């Protein structure tokens, strides 16, 4: 899993049926001390994340598991909202 910050959202009316009613959020992967790293992605939200929050997300086939029994086509799903990040010898991301 990886850390990211929610930086926006995507609205798509014409989409795969299983995506109907699911929130599509723009996320910027970040390092453990909050620096952006790599390019933004679009993630399906499974936990109620909001703009600006630090989250963690799961990639690959496993990203569709939080929605079972619905079969949701996602390879990038937000599965947790971060309260605190502790890193040895460095500041905290929050």
């Amino acid at each position: 899993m990886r850390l990211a910050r929610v930086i926006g959202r995507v609205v798509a009316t014409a989409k795969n049926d299983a995506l109907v009613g699911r929130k599509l959020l723009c996320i910027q992967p970040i390092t453990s001390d909050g620096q952006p790293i790599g390019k933004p992605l679009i993630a399906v939200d499974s936990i109620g994340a909001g703009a600006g929050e630090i989250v963690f997300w799961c990639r690959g086939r496993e990203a569709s598991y939080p929605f079972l029994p619905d079969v949701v086509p996602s390879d990038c799903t937000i599965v947790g909202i971060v309260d605190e990040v502790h890193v040895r010898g460095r500041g905290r991301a929050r």
Partner: protein
Amino acid sequence: MILARVIGNVVATQKNERYHGARIMIVQPINLDGSDRGDPILALDAVDAGEGDRVLVVQEGWSASVAATGRPGAAIDATIVGVVDTIDYES
């Protein structure tokens, strides 16, 4: 699998229910000689790894889910499955 060093952890109360009770660690992938290799990732701990430990991480969902929660089908893509004592290799 990959080798990594545990550099921290993440606290998250609002998370996928399969994560409850699991320790979410931050690990820095490393080369055989211990130098950094790529970016840190999050991995669930299944072997009581501590900060600073060199660990073995599996990055495939089925194995990661089984190792972390005892059964497959969770949205988990990385789990610590071993704490490394020594690495012998010929570069």
